[in-house]
């Protein structure tokens, strides 16, 4: 890849709401992240962590600034273009799992590859589920799985298309300590195997300490970057 940075953003701002109720969420973010890095984003509630992740993952369009992610320039893309740009580039794991309740574990993992029109979606989904230790749960629906198992499916779904970048927003927030620990082990293990850049949003300093680089946000700005 000619571009050494998997994330390259400059002067990103995000405002939500209209007129009097307008709130500045992100206030001029500059950030570069190299491929294969593990990075933790810390900060109090309301500091703009999730919003930054939303902008970096193309879930939200910034109000201003330049966003280049995994070789794609998000600037000026509409929502549908961003959805297409995410395919195969970006994987996302959320705190509340957000599995599709009407689909089995296998189907949940296959969906992003089906949406991208890949013919071997189910084979790759099965292999990924096998890799996260759920080879025996392919036909189970989310309600038939424990919280930890659901998050494993979510990790498999995020990694199966082999994205360059994996976002994880409080991935253990809904799990007990033991299960959470196992999920983190799995997350870092799979990251190491797939060589994806891992971008974790967390309140947990212990989790942050497992990442090579740590950022801290406050009031819409990055106030500390361990790399600098």
């Amino acid at each position, binding site marked *: 890849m000619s571009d050494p940075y998997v994330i390259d953003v400059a002067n990103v701002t995000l405002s939500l709401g209209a007129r009097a109720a307008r709130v500045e969420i992100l206030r001029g973010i500059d950030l570069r992240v190299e491929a294969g890095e593990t990075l933790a984003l810390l900060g109090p509630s309301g500091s703009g962590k*999730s919003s930054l992740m939303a902008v970096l993952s193309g879930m939200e369009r910034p109000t201003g600034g330049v966003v280049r992610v995994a070789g794609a320039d998000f600037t000026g893309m509409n929502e549908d273009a961003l959805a297409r740009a995410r395919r195969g580039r970006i994987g996302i794991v959320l705190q509340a799992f957000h599995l599709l309740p009407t689909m089995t574990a296998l189907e949940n993992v296959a969906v992003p590859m089906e949406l991208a029109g890949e013919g071997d979606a189910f084979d790759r989904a099965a292999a990924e589920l096998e890799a996260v230790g759920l080879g025996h749960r392919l036909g189970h629906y989310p309600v038939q799985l424990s919280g930890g198992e659901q998050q494993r499916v979510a990790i498999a779904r995020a990694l199966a298309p082999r994205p360059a970048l994996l976002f994880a927003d409080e991935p253990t927030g809904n799990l007990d300590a033991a299960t959470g620990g196992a999920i983190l082990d799995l997350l870092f293990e799979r990251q190491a195997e797939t060589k994806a850049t891992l971008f974790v949003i967390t309140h947990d300093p212990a989790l942050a300490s497992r990442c090579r680089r740590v950022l801290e946000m406050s009031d819409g700005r990055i106030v500390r970057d361990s790399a600098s």
Partner: protein
Amino acid sequence: MILRLALRDLRGGLAGLRLLAACLFLGVTALAGVGSLTAAVLAGLSDQGQAILGGDVQVEMNQRPASDEELAAFTREGEVSRLIRMRAMAAPAAGGDPALVELKGVDGRYPFYGEFRLRDGALADRPRGNQVAIGPELADKLGVNVGSELRIGAGAFRVIGVIEREPDRVSQGFALGPSAMMDQAGLDATGLIRPGSLFIAAYRMKIPASADPAEITRLLQRDFPSAGLKVEDRLNAAPGTRRFLERLGQFLTLVGLSALVVAGIGVGNGVGSYLDNKRGAIAMLKTLGATSGTIFRIYLAQIGLVAILAILAGLAAGATVPSLVAWAAGDAIPVPPGSGIYPDALILAAGYGLLAALAFALVPLARARTVASASLLRGGVEANKRAPWWALAGALGAGVGIVALAVWTAPTPAFALGFVAAALGLLALLSLLAAAIRWTLARLPRPRAPLVRMALANLHRPGAQTGRLVVALGAGLTLFTTLAVIESNLSAQIRSTIPARAPSFFILDVPSGDAERFRATAARAAPDAELHLMPSLRATITAIGARRIADMAELPEGAWFLRSDRNVTFAATPPEGTRIIEGEWWAPDYDGPPLVSLDAENARAAGLNVGDTLTVSVLGREVEAQIANLREIDWGRLGINFVIIFSPGVFDAAPLSLMGTATMPTEREQAFARAINRDFPSVSAVRIQDVLTSVADLMGQLAAAIRAAGAVAILAGIAVLIGALAASRRARVYDSVLLKLLGATRGRILWGQALEFALLAFILSLLALGLGTGAGWYVVVNLFELEWAPDWGAVLLTLGAGAGLTLVIGLAGALPALAARPAQALRAL
């Protein structure tokens, strides 16, 4: 891929789309049912055309038998059967009140087609000589049985049986009395057929299978253009009944369409709340790379699939309506409906269903595609975005499609357009009122009692369904109130208002030479009776201006006087109460070329003015007359009103009889009827009250059909209410649980909810009463031109039932929220 994802997503069950399915099912069932029933009855008319007409071709003429030349023309085409029919009075020979009958004298060939059958216990298979077969209603009315003796005209007849099946009954149109059938010898014995008496001679032809009845009809009309013949063939038997059924079918279809529009609100609500529940999944799919287009197509496929299933189920249910009606209504419908499937009606209903689904589902579907993936991070708190222009245009296009389809397929497009405009106007008005109600409720002073405050707030808070409920339930209730106002008004007119100002009897067939003797008899039986008699002849209009009626493809709308033969009279001076609005009445001693005075309303409809000409055929002779003046007729008086009055001298040589009215106190009516029947057996004295009862019965049957179609609107409204309750279930459980936590008892919470639904029901009743009464007033006063006299008891009862139902369903739907246990519910919320 889209279908695969759509089907996968549907595994969660169809519960969320139940409202969509129920509403579409109801609307399509109503439309498919009405369409199939109309088609089935019309098919029955066509299939049984020969039996209904009594032959392949029928020629009818007034007050005369066929001439030799005419008879020769009929006989050339095939076998001919002659039948005479007229109105007459029948009375038990042993004494008793006489009753009006539709008397039929048939020959040995009757019927060419179909089966004439008497009930079990008959003394013979058909009447001969001094025998008569009677309709079951006459047996009941006169209290006579098989074997009893009846006096009809100058003859005495033994009842040999009660008629079970009379195949050609329908083709005679609306009957004022039950049937009495005898043979030609019997008819001669009555002495009723005299020069001038009002009878119809019908000649029915049985033609070879290879002959074309339409061609024969055309040739007969061509060969005898001025004979006043009414020629019909088996392909178009009972055209009046067909026209009536087509229009009734159209009206019921339009009522059904209104119900479908109400159901459409349910479709919109159902789809909207279903997609609201899917916001999380939609946002996740977008996060995983689905575009808005993919989301739109996935849910379009789902909703389309459920809509198609609901429409198919509605079509299946609607297709069974003809059989169900045939089974349930029996003789109440004029022709037994065919039992087949009527694809045209089903395709049309499916088309309406699909368009309604598109019109109401497109906007919520288009909104669903705008759900942002970032909403996953904001806990789903996100305002609904405006639907894109193309969705609004598509919904509007589908709505226009429904209107276009309704107008295009209607036998009378102008009426359909007017009805649709009125229905849309009502919906727009209800929407405005709904907004006004929410606005007002939100600005009322806040009550101190918390539960009352909450009940009020539930009706106007953000996300409240009050607006949709007012439109959906309001439309159904308004429709029912309108029907109740019209029906109760007509019943009141028929029961009291009309009889109070109408005469007591119509008098038919007084021989012109017996007028003075008749007056004397009447004066003896009812000294204070007021008698009006006028000369009368049957005439058929054959041309207006230079245009022959037979050559007109379509008669002008509203010019009903052109349709069939009618009574005409002549007079030197204007009859009492005449109001001439154009032209002038002729001089009392006028002796010039024929002039005519015409009903203004019919004249306008036919495009006729003073100075134009009108040609009628009387007793086989054509008379052309110039229109001298136009009159306004008050039909509400129920007197003898002649649409056409000629100047004197035109019919001097014609044999004629007198007809008119007799007005007297009710207590004299029986003596009058018996005296006239005794001294003038050939004269028919028809009690107005009996006629009104027949009309009321017919109106009752029509009202039942309209109510059945309208009931779908109420059911659809209820479905919308249930859907609204389901949509607000979460909020209600939350409110209920919090109130319990704060110390409210279940009784108090229930009271609060009862108050909410009572308020809603009250508002709806008020709206329906106002709008329904307004619409009913318009129909009664402006369209029917009757007095405004609704039965408020019946109207309020209808309204009360509707409002009560709303309250009960609302409370029943709210009960589960009441039963929620706080700890459990809070965990689940």
